């Protein structure tokens, strides 16, 4: 990549940080926004229709929780995904923004209306004291529900696109990016998942706010158990549909990922997790429907935990299957584009790099040049000595004894064929040797590697702009 490298030694490519921020965001967005808004709007409507101020009060209190969480952690982690990806993978997010500008722009407009609506809805709740005002207020809730679903619908297009660019790879047209093959099943899965977990979230909150009003609690539990049961059926079917489309989608990318051991492991785990999650939600749903009194509040934590696990696995698997690409068939996860790969392998990656100390590998600068090679081609996924560290990886292969430098150089040339989630090495033979020299030196010294945020940039002594 031709950007200064933000790099955290020990944590490597930031997948952990992006993943953490993104997971928090999704785990708030799906249940609390996409799922809970319509459920709470329904409660408000029902309370209005049947003159049940207690249910209205309950909906208001839960909305307060939703309002606080979504407008702080929810909103900020959404921005956080963007800021963290622009640090760790500026080439990826930068390219996606150019392709998906109108998608993101539309998403922005929808997001503005979502934020305005949630504030309007929550802050005007108590002012809606006449039937007319109440009817209008309920409409705000409906609009909010639609908008929050729409923001998700637009963003999912981007996620689907990263895994399979569909016709975009030829046409470079925005609409083709939007209609890539994984779009609908993924959107359906997420929508159903949001309702299923949103129902359990509202149910869980209800317990805190209805200590003196068991009547209201049983009413809510009964209704929510229906939502849970219906949506879990959709979670199941969309989950299966999504997963059945992946091989086809990935085959279009690269037949490799499909058949790798890694993939079959992910697949098996997703299937069993999906079954168990749906099963726990089913137990809770049916229990809430038939014997609402007998379901203790802590029991809700079990499906909640399973849901988090399932979604976490879903997102991790999605990210895994994308590899070695950051944008399928266009750009590898280290920012090297497919069309420049062979060119760089022939000419050398350092020759055309900006933020490197040396443009050419020599006997004297081998280790320093190797560090730059590591930064450009490995550091987006690997650390030196920490998580997913290169030393650990080579130790797995070559053991604790002496490592054969020639063997390592030869491995770098073919690693993308043995470890199919890795991009091909984007440099020439001298650069492979420099990288190996750096890794062997690192093994001896275990010298920490600092990113541009600490060490600053490295540029060649004599830089010519050609």
């Amino acid at each position, binding site marked *: 990549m031709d950007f200064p490298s933000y790099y955290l030694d020990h944590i490597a490519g930031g997948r952990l940080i992006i993943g953490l921020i993104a997971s928090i965001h999704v785990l708030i967005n799906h249940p609390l926004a996409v799922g809970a808004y319509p459920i709470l709007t329904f409660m408000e409507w029902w309370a209005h229709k049947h003159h049940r101020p207690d249910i209205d009060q309950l909906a208001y209190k839960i909305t307060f929780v939703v309002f606080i969480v979504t407008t*702080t952690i929810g909103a900020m982690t959404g*921005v956080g995904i963007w800021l963290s990806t622009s640090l760790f993978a500026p080439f990826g997010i930068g390219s996606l923004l150019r392709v998906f*500008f109108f998608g993101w722009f539309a998403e*922005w407009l929808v997001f503005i209306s979502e934020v305005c609506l949630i504030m309007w809805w929550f802050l005007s709740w108590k002012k809606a004291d006449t039937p007319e005002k109440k009817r209008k207020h309920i409409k705000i809730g409906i609009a909010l529900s639609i908008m929050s679903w729409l923001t998700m619908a637009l963003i999912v297009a981007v996620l689907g696109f990263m895994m399979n660019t569909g016709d975009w790879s030829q046409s470079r047209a925005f609409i083709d990016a939007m209609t890539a093959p994984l779009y609908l099943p993924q959107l359906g899965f997420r929508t159903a998942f949001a309702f299923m977990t949103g129902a359990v979230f509202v149910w869980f909150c209800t317990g805190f706010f209805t200590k003196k009003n068991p009547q209201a609690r049983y009413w809510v539990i009964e209704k929510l158990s229906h939502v849970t049961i219906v949506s879990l059926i959709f979670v199941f079917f969309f989950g299966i549909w999504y997963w059945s489309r992946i091989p086809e989608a990935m085959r279009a990318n690269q037949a490799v990922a499909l058949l790798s051991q890694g993939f079959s492991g992910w697949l098996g785990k997703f299937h069993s997790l999906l079954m168990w999650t749906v099963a726990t939600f089913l137990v809770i749903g049916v229990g809430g429907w038939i014997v609402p009194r007998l379901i203790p509040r802590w029991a809700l934590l079990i499906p909640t935990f399973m849901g988090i696990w399932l979604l976490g696995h879903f997102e991790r698997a999605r990210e895994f299957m994308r590899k070695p690409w950051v944008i399928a068939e266009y750009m590898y996860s280290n920012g090297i584009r497919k069309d420049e790969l062979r060119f760089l392998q022939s000419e050398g990656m350092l020759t055309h790099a900006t933020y490197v100390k040396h443009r050419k590998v020599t006997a004297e600068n081998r280790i320093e040049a190797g560090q730059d090679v590591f930064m450009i081609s490995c550091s987006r996924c690997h650390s030196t000595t920490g998580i997913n560290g290169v030393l650990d990886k080579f130790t*797995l292969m070559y053991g604790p004894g002496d490592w054969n430098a020639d063997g390592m150089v030869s491995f770098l040339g073919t690693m993308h064929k043995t470890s199919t989630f890795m991009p091909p090495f984007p440099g020439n033979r001298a650069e492979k040797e420099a990288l190996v020299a750096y890794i062997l030196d690192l093994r001896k010294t275990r010298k920490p590697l600092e990113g541009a945020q600490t060490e600053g940039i490295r540029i060649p002594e004599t830089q010519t702009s050609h």
Partner: protein
Amino acid sequence: MILSILAHTPIPRDLPLPLPLPEGLLKALLVVFFLVHILFVNLTVGGSILVAIFEGLGFRKRRYDLLALEIAKTVTVNKSLAVVMGIGPLLCINLVYTVEWYGANALTGHAWLLIIPLITLAFLLAYLHKYTWHRWESGGWKIGHWAIVLASTLLFLCIPFVFLANINLMLFPSEWEKVKGFFSSLRIGNVFPRYLHFLLASVALSGLAGAGWFWKATVVEKIPGFRRDELRRMFYRVAMWATGLQFIAGPILLFTLPGVGVTPLLYKIILPSAALGLCLWYALWKKVKGSDGNLSTGFFPIVCFFSVVVLGMGSGRHAYREAALASHQSQVRERSEDYQKQLEAWNTAHPEDAESDAETPEQLFATCAACHAPDQRLVGPSLKEIAVIYAGNPDGIVTWATAPGKKRPDYPPMPAFAHLGEEKLRTIADYILATAPK
């Protein structure tokens, strides 16, 4: 001297994808979206400062406490709008200043990432402050309550530094080599005068917004002890003072700007805007000093005036940015195009098919060679050993390589090679059996 500085300016390659909209349009959108965003940021920061001050005054006079609460209610709304309106300008700046912006982000990386938890914390504190107002109302609780707004205000005051550092740093790629982390980036350009200018704008804007908001009867009735003309005059005074101080902060900002982006155009935009600012200040002064009857009119014209001044300042900033980055951007463009040309020429000269068709058994075997050596154990067993196990049975190798597992306790498991296809695997298997040392 100049040459040596130029030689150390990084000229990176831009992304080769075309911009989704004409560059000029994106830049115009950037200016407009940014002003909308900064409006709400100003109201959040300025509002928070006013809440902290008025709640402090409220310890002596209760009416200030009620006033502080009413402002606090607007802060939590404005902060949400500040975030959501920030996405538009971020989108535009990412597109038109890709290499400069991401470069600055990476150089201030830790601080850039810390924005997320810090803003989240500031927001949570702001909510805590607002929703505990009537609960933590007396004695030590009230002091604690005040401490919350002091903490969130302090955060609101610190966070803009990170944004300003980035906005500033992206303008001076020639200085990037000196930057070693966020704090050292504050020494580049003129971050502190920018900050002062921003802070005064926040207070001025919040004063003006207060003069409008506290004119509403439904709001004023919640603050017994204040008349609405009294409130309006007070907020006009806040706006007047902050605007007046801009005539000190503004010149400092202008004269500390590094020369690289200072052009006649900049002065052509800034000076008339400053002259309008002076008229604005005079209008505010008239309101503050005038009679009560005078207060009920003229708010809307003042807001329009203010908007024009702000638009002028925003355009001035953009003119400076354009001039400061003109040469860097053209060099980046040149280098990117040059690279693209070289790349295309190379790809034309070396069509892909020619190579992949010519894969010899030896080339295919290279995939295996990283782990399997002829005569010794590398990662997996040697070819010699393999040839003994699979003597006369190349299909056995194919079957194994398609779906291998872990056979030997002291060896790592072999990855699957099904993706190579049966034909190639068979070629490799034959090659292994033929060339393995006996």
